[in-house]
């Protein structure tokens, strides 16, 4: 039940249209990804709040053993002014 990097990026962009999103396939198996998301809307929020926004964008893809996405190492950042 692998997911393509492009699908992950598209889901995040849908929720955060102006975000800079970079997805790296860590293991080459379509199942272990790293995502770096940079978005202005993260400003003033702590890391937990920032990552909740990204998880919400992924709409349950991360959920449990039946989730399509087993592992996503997530880094959220605020853009440099």
């Amino acid at each position, binding site marked *: 039940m692998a997911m393509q990097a492009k699908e992950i990026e598209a889901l995040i962009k849908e929720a955060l249209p102006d975000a800079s999103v970079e997805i790296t396939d860590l293991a080459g198996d379509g199942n272990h990804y790293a995502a770096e998301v940079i978005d202005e809307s993260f400003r003033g929020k702590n*890391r*937990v709040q920032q*990552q*909740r926004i990204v*998880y919400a964008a*992924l709409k*349950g893809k*991360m*959920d*449990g053993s039946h*989730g399509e996405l087993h*592992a*996503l*190492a*997530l*880094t959220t950042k605020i853009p440099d002014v």
Partner: protein
Amino acid sequence: MSDTKSLIDQTIKSNDVVLYMKGTKSMPQCGFSSKVAGVLNYMEVDYQDVNVLADENIRQGIKDFSDWPTIPQLYVKGEFVGGCDIIIEMTLSGELDTMFDDTGIKYDKDAADKIRESNA
């Protein structure tokens, strides 16, 4: 409050540091859980590990409780701190030290510095 919810609530309130993880602190069963347990073990933090693989109710319950979809999850003084990526970032930036200092949790500062040195 459901039984699971009140059990979680009780666990995070009666232990200063709790790590919900896959496996145990001495035998983690997932790379992400292993990373966080490894940091806490190395820093000699006294923490309670909860193996979510041992209880399906807790496994789903903790995700609902914290509104966070992944395991591991670290709680300090009853507050959700974050998952693997956040804890590793905080370890490397020194924010984890600050949080332990502020909340009066004992840890080995030299060990924390060593982690930062080797990841610099």
